[in-house]
């Protein structure tokens, strides 16, 4: 009887620990037109943190959002679409990993796939994709992971801690052994 209670307690703690490790995140994806204009509009708030980097990388002075989408990931296997009038960015999340999420990205121009890529999007490192030239500007795709502030208002995006990283390595190790 005592052994059963002990086993139950261990299982409960493991389940609780696993739940604690899994925080909900929001993946923000945006379609951005970067161009040089005489009087640039202020950068959208979603891109404020990246303003300097984008300006240095691409040399444009205005960054305009033409489409965006925010998706709260619960299972890490959701998919969604960020659309503008002519472009569509389809994001297919294929699971959570030790640093973030594995995403399959497809950039559509109407019905044509212009670009396809698969990335491990880190929680602490945004992804910027340089798309085609559009008129005098440039299409950019921006993806970043944020903590779900409604669910965790006190948390901030941080690099993965060693315990959760170890947990994911253990999962990956078990996956390899099984395969």
């Amino acid at each position, binding site marked *: 009887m005592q052994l059963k209670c002990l086993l139950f307690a261990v299982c409960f703690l493991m389940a609780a620990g696993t739940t604690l490790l899994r925080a909900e995140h929001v993946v923000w994806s945006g379609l951005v037109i970067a161009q040089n204009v005489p009087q640039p509009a202020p950068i959208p708030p979603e891109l404020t943190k990246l303003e300097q980097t984008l300006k240095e*990388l691409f040399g444009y002075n205005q960054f305009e959002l*033409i489409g965006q989408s925010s998706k709260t990931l619960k299972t890490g296997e959701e998919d969604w679409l960020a659309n503008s009038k002519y*472009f569509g960015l389809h994001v297919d999340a294929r699971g959570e990993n030790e*640093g973030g999420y594995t995403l399959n990205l497809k950039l559509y121009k109407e019905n044509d796939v*212009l670009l396809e890529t*698969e990335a491990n999007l*880190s929680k602490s490192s945004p992804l910027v994709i340089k798309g085609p030239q*559009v008129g005098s500007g440039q299409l950019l795709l921006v993806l970043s992971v944020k903590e779900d502030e409604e669910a965790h208002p006190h948390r901030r995006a941080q690099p993965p801690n060693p315990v959760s990283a170890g947990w994911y*390595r253990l999962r990956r190790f078990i996956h390899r052994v099984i395969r």
Partner: protein
Amino acid sequence: MKTFEEKWTAWLDGKLSGKELTDFEASLPDLAAAEAEKRNALKLGAFLKEQLAGQPLSNEEFFSHQIHERIARENESRSGGARSTWWTIPRLVWSGATALALFLITTVWLISQNEPGEQSEYLTQILNSRVDPGANPNAKIYIFESKNDSKVTVLWTEGLQSLPADYAAK
């Protein structure tokens, strides 16, 4: 200074003498009644002594045997119960210590393990990417990280087909 009760008890037991006895008997309001009470108390004392004297057990050996048997039975069941469980205290301690050691070794190994050539987990990694070769035959893809603090991973494409400005519409 003795209290009246102490003197009364001593008087009943016949332990008062001399002036003390004379003074005490003089202080009694009714000496005859007190004498009668004294006689009754002595009688009761003698009766109780007689009745409460130890009575020898007629079956002493039988009771002794019963008690010894019962003690032996209890000792046996106690030692038998301890033998039936595998989880003795020393074994529990050793099992716990071994499990803890294994847990620590595994944890340290998993945390310290970093595959050679593996990109830092703090940065986004591009696993693969491709452009439509039919529409963009000269397209090239480069991957790099920004050199400032924002830790941006950039997938840089060159040679994609340019599109008219209308495509910038929201």
